[in-house]
Every structure is written in C-alpha cells, then in structure tokens.
C-alpha cells in the first residue's frame, strides 16, 4: 500500500517506525509558532512545566499580528508579555509591527516553511503552509507550550481526503472561489480530524498565492491540514527564501485515501459565502441585492500582492461608493512595499480606500474596521460567523478580492464584470 504526501511527512517525523491511521503517535516538530493572542497562554504553560530552555530557540517564532498595532492597554500588555519571554529565552524569530505582518503570510515569506516540514502553529490557519508541501497543523496554546518544551507533539494519524479539480477556470475565479465552492459541498465539518489533499490540473496551473488561500481555508472545513504536492512553481517561489535542504514528497498512486472527490470547475462562478457560515455559498449571479457598509481586502487568506493587484485592476480610476468604508490591508510589510513600488497604493488612495498596516484587525472584529449593529461587510477574510467582525447583529459576506473591490465601488455585492 502506497502513502500520501501527508503520511510520508508524518513518517519522517514520527518517533516510531510504523503506525496506522487513527493511531496516536508522537512527532518531532520543525517549526512552532504563536501570536499575540495565543502566545501568552502558551508561554504560561511552558513556564509552568518548568523547563529551563526551549527545545530550540531557532525553531520557534512569535508573530504579533492579531491586535498589532496594539489596540488598547490590555492587548499592549499581552504583546509586552510575549516580547519579554522572547528576550528571556533568546528566541531567534520575533516579528512585530515594522518587522512583521500576518503570521501565515510572513512564515513562508521569511523561509520558515519548506516542503516536507512538519509545522505546528497556535492558530487555526496554520494550514496555510501546506500550500508548499509541508504538513502544517493548527493547535491550541497548551499544545504549543509543550512543543516549546519538548520539540514534539502528540497527534492522531489522520485519514486523507483527496480533492481533484479538473477543467479550465473562468475569468475572476481564484483559489478563494475553489475553496469556498469545496466547503459549500463538503460542509464546515466535512474534513474534521482529516487532511485535505488538493490536486488536479487546476492546482498545477494555480499561483502559489491561490494555493495558500486554498490551504488556509481548509481550516474552515474542519481539516487538520490542507496540503498540495510541491512542484516547479513551488521551487520558483522558494528561491531566495530558504536553503535547498528540503524534501519534495509526492503521494503514491496506490495511496490510501478515505475519499477521492473530483470536481469539474470549468463552469463555476465566483462564490460569495453568506452569513453566518463559510459553507453558505452562492454563485455571484444568485446573490441578489445586498447593500454593504464596508469592504475589507486583506488577511492571511487574501492579503498577498497578487490579491492587491487584482483589487487595484478594478479600483483603478474609480472610487469607493460614498456609503462604503474600503479597507485594504497588505498582509506583510514586504507586500506593502511591493504594492507601493507598483503604484497600487496610489490607486487605492485615489479610490478613497484606507490602507492599513499589516494586521489581522477587522477579520476577527479586533480593531481597524469593526462593524456596528446591523452593518454589513463584504470581506476577503475567512470566517463570517455571528459577531466575527464586530456587533453580533452585523453580517459578513466572504468573497475573492475582485468581488470585494467591485462591490466597494457599487455599494452592493456585485461581480467585477459589472464595473469592467
């Protein structure tokens, strides 16, 4: 019996030679990280355990992104707590404000994700890193505190679901639409405890940015991880970011999948997820008249330079509707800088958008664009749960950056075709 890419990575990190699906095993961790929200609990756990040193100060990272720049005294205190820990234990990788960005974008950008790695992050969207052929799982803070102490974690060997996308994509269709479409089919618990392996000719032709988006939202189907076999495109992306010391695993033809699901995506339209679940999707032509108060383009899901280029191509020479607050959030400082060089920021400002520093901010209703009672937003983020972006009676609709940009101009949710 062959193995899947995920199983090969788990094997190469397992403490034991052989194991079966469903078995609980211990695995070594190549990189572990937390943020300003999950970090403090993880640190307290690590310190309570009583180890004098972390397992490897170069294999741990802290990313202050959720409430960065600090929104109030309490969040500033949390960030200070993390900073002091980083100093006390000599942690080598610490990113915040001007050196930082949103963790899941910054992690690959800084070369912390290599194909074949096993990565553990105290954030559910850690799955993003699977786009480069790593096995990346989100955990809670206690798990991360123990990883910092021991360099390993326990895991239940997961079952694998293979998703194959066939066909040729319509204009405006991106990774966001593919993953929203998939979640609408399999449901928000469609992959609970399992790994989603994304494949097929469509994935082979997809940009790394779109692959990140797909693996990012594997979390919204409940998956332990999303993963894509690394290829030439992956190698091109990695060049200059990390060394060549990595392993490009592929799934065997006779590998053991719990399920193989094939989609012909030639005819799918851009997707919009209605409140209050990412599975609640409709094609853009069936959205109807949804007036919006806010449009958010950014986040670990869609804040990369490719996303900003798409938004700028629609916003160029146009203005956001007077009733709409348009927030554009480059996901890292490097993305911000690149957008400046390409003239995108000028386009955004001319369109009456506010360009925010890299932050998770509005995605979690934290700060930098919180919704009032009864307000609605179109957003390129990943969750539209009750109260996700602010007041419990506000509503979030999820989409790709093209729809979010076009909708900002018209003041209601529309296809980019309607402004082009």
């Amino acid at each position, binding site marked *: 019996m062959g193995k899947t890419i995920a199983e090969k990575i788990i094997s190469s990190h397992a403490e034991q030679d052989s194991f079966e699906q469903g078995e*609980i095993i*211990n695995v070594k961790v190549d990189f572990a990280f937390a943020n300003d*929200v*999950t970090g*403090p*609990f993880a640190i*307290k*756990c690590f310190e*309570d*355990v*009583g180890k004098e040193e972390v397992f490897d100060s170069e294999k741990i990272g802290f990313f202050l992104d*959720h*409430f960065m720049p600090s*929104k*109030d005294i*309490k*969040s500033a205190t*949390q960030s200070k707590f993390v900073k002091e820990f980083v100093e006390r234990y000599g942690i080598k990788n610490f990113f915040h404000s001007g050196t930082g960005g949103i963790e899941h974008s910054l992690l690959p950008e800084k070369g912390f994700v290599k194909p074949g790695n096993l990565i553990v992050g*105290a*954030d*559910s969207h*850690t799955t993003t890193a699977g786009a480069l052929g790593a096995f990346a799982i*989100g*955990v*809670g*803070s*206690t*798990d991360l*505190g*123990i990883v910092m*102490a*021991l360099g*390993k*974690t*326990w895991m239940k060997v997961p079952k694998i679901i293979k998703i194959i996308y066939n066909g040729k994509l319509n204009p405006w269709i991106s990774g966001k639409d593919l993953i929203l479409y998939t979640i609408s089919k399999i449901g*928000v*618990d469609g992959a*609970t*405890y399992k790994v989603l392996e994304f494949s097929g000719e469509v994935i082979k032709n997809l940009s790394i940015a779109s692959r990140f988006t797909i693996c990012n939202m594997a979390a919204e189907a*409940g998956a*332990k991880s999303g993963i894509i076999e690394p290829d030439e495109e992956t190698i091109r992306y990695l060049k200059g970011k990390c060394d060549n010391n990595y392993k490009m695993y592929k799934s065997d033809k006779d590998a053991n999948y719990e399920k193989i699901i094939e989609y012909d995506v030639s005819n799918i339209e851009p997707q919009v997820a209605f409140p209050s*679940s990412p599975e609640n999707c409709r094609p853009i032509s069936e959205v109807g008249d949804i007036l919006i108060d806010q449009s958010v383009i950014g986040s670990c899901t869609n804040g990369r330079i490719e996303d900003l280029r798409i938004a700028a191509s629609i916003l160029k020479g146009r203005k956001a509707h007077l009733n709409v607050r348009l927030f554009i959030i480059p996901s890292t400082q490097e993305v911000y800088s690149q957008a400046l060089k390409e003239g995108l920021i000028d386009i955004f400002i001319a369109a009456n958008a506010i360009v925010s520093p890299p932050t998770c901010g509005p995605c*979690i*209703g*934290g700060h930098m664009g*919180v919704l009032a009672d009864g307000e609605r937003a179109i957003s390129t983020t990943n*969750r539209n*749960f*009750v*109260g*996700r972006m*602010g007041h*419990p009676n506000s509503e979030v609709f999820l989409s790709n950056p093209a729809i979010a940009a076009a909708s900002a101009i018209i003041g209601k949710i529309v296809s980019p075709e309607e402004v082009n």
Partner: protein
Amino acid sequence: MISKGNIWKFGKNINTDVIMPARYINVSDPKELSLHCMEDIDSDFMKNISEGDIIVAEENFGCGSSREHAPVSIKAAGISCIIAKSFARIFYRNAINIGLPILEMDDFVDECTTGDIVRVDLLEGVVKDLTKNKTYKTTPFPRFIRDRDIVYAGGLKNYIKETGDL
C-alpha cells in the same frame, strides 16, 4: 469523576467566536475571560448558569479559531462537562489539554432538554438524565487519553510536569 448539573443546550457548529468573541481575548486571565463566555450566542448565559452545569450541543462544537480562551472560559465559568454529537479538532485537543471533560454522544443529545438535571460519570461513560429518569451509556474518553491520564492529571501541562515527557 462525577459531574452533576443543569444542562444548557445549543445547536450545531457552535464556533469559538461566539463562545469567546475576539474583542475580549486581549487578556488571558481565565476568570476575566469567563465573564463573556457564550456571550454572542446567549447574552444571559453567565447570569443563568450555576457551578457544575453542563453544556450540550449538536455536531462540530468549538469549530473555527484555535483560541484556547474558548474552553478556558467555559471551564472558568464553572461548566463541569460538555456533551456534544462531535467536536471540532482543535477544540477537542484544547479541552483535553486543559482538563475540561468532554463526551461525544448522539442519543442523549437528541432527547435531552435545556434545564434537565443530569449526572455524568466520566470514568464509566454513563450519563443519567435525572429529570427524564433515563440512563445513557457512551465510550468514556478515548483509550489513549485514559492511558496517558491527561485529563485526570488536570490537563497536558500537569501530565508533562509529572512525567517529563509525552
């Protein structure tokens, strides 16, 4: 380990944003977090519950964000156990890791009603609805968790403190 209390019943896909809204997770003190436990799905929850009460829910309880603040706030609120048809993966790990008892059951969840008084024997996997006078049996914690005594040690941290290793 015995729990006894009133049950509070919720639907499916109860996510960690409604259990513990992100606007309150700028602190990590369990008691302070618990003041807002379940606020965005039931704003009177903290006013209504008593020490030892039990949360019951349908499928996929705790989906969404990995924030441990969610199970931590539930535990600090005094909830003694959560019984759901299924749990989201990270929430499941977090609950075990912090020593918050959870059970997966279908029949009991279908038949019970908010306000029922229930007695849960976690070691035996027996749930008795005292209001309806009906007894249900389920698998206690998965064997590995019992073997490793993680929940009974009061969570993964205490387990590692005692044993030094996984």
